[in-house]
Structures are given as structure tokens and as C-alpha cells.
């Protein structure tokens, strides 16, 4: 999936993935897609909830060699 920006949040623990995601998202325009890589096991629920609350869309997520990848479209 194509992304406008990729955020590497691997190795970071709560609350950093969400703090970094917000910062990265602030730099994008509505409709653009942010790709996030994280290793924090809570990231899946955290990012899904965060995207929903902020009016963004979690397009897709997958797991690859213990790295969780997310694609969020800015609302």
C-alpha cells in the first residue's frame, strides 16, 4: 500500500508510538496516508482507538516478523 509518510516507531514503548503518530499526522494533509511500524504489542488497539477518535481511517494493518504495520488515512 502506498503511503505519503512512514513513521518508524519500532522499539518504542507506550505512550511514545501514539505521541509520534500524532506528530507525524499533524504534518500531513487530509486524505494522505501515514504508514507506521511499531513493536509495542498494545499498538494495535491503541492506534485503532486513536484513529477512530480523531476521525482518521485505519485502512489496513499487518504483522511481519514481529513488526506491526499500520496504514492510517488522515480524516
Amino acid at each position: 500500500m502506498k503511503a505519503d509518510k512512514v513513521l518508524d516507531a519500532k522499539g518504542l514503548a507506550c505512550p511514545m508510538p501514539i505521541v509520534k503518530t500524532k506528530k507525524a499526522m499533524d504534518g500531513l494533509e487530509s486524505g494522505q496516508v501515514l504508514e507506521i511500524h511499531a513493536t509495542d504489542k498494545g499498538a494495535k488497539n491503541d492506534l485503532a482507538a486513536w484513529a477512530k477518535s480523531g476521525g482518521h481511517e485505519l485502512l489496513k494493518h499487518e504483522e511481519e516478523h514481529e513488526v506491526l504495520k499500520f496504514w492510517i488515512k488522515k480524516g
Partner: protein
Amino acid sequence: MTEKKTTNIILFSGDYDKAMAAYIIANGAAAYDHEVTIFHTFWGLNALRKDEPLALKKGFLEKMFAKMMPRGADKMGLSNMNFSGMGPKMIKHVIKKHNAMTLPQLIEMAQEQDIKLVACTMTMDLLGLQQEELLENVEYAGVAAYLADAENGNVNLFI
């Protein structure tokens, strides 16, 4: 856009672990685009203390308090398994190992995210703490200011 949601946390505890929880929630809430306030009262005020000793005019009791209370976030003890100071050392070790953030880092991050850090002036008087002893960019207020923030708040916590 609707009006911003707010998160209001009262940090009463002077324990390292409880303060960590408060600051993690606060930083998370800021990432949720909430307006976040941490209202520090009683032992929670110690999280805002500078770590260097300052020569200030104080009475005997105030000097005793100043000596006995932790000077700054890094010196705070744990609510559980403190083991006379060994506990915090162990916790800081595992924090590093798991790439989590220490309490001083969380406080710095909170300031970067424009979280409002408030010190309760009444309890500052009780504990003999003066503004010079606390971090820069801290606001000073009392119960009414807290209530004004909290009455329409979406998340209200007492830690």
C-alpha cells in the same frame, strides 16, 4: 471542528510509579488532541521540584520538609517494593531495558506537548515549597482553577 476535549489529572501522590502513570496518561491524552492539565498537590508537588538545592529563606519546619521530601521526579520512591531506594534503581533499569520513558523524560515530553502543569499554592505553603524551587513554566492556582478546567472535562483522574 468541535471544541477540544479536556483531560484533568490531579497528581496527589509523590510516588515515582504513580506519577509515571499520571504522566503517561497525560501524554497520551495530548496525543488525542485533548487539552491536558496536571494539577499537582501535596506530595505530587515534588515531581515539579528542581534537583539542585537552593538557598531560600525558610523556617525550621519548612527546612525539615525540604530535606525529607524528594528533590525532583528522579528522586521519588516507589509505592511498592521501594526497598529503601533499591526499588527505584531496579525500575529505572527495566525502564531502560524496555525502552520506556523515565519520569523526568515524561515530564519533559509533557512540557513539549503543551500540557499545563499546575502547582497548588495552598499545599505549597503547607510543605514550605517556593516558586523558585519548582520547574519553569509551571502555573500556580487553587481549587477553583482546577474545577473550572474539570467541570466540563471528559477525563478526570485523581492519582
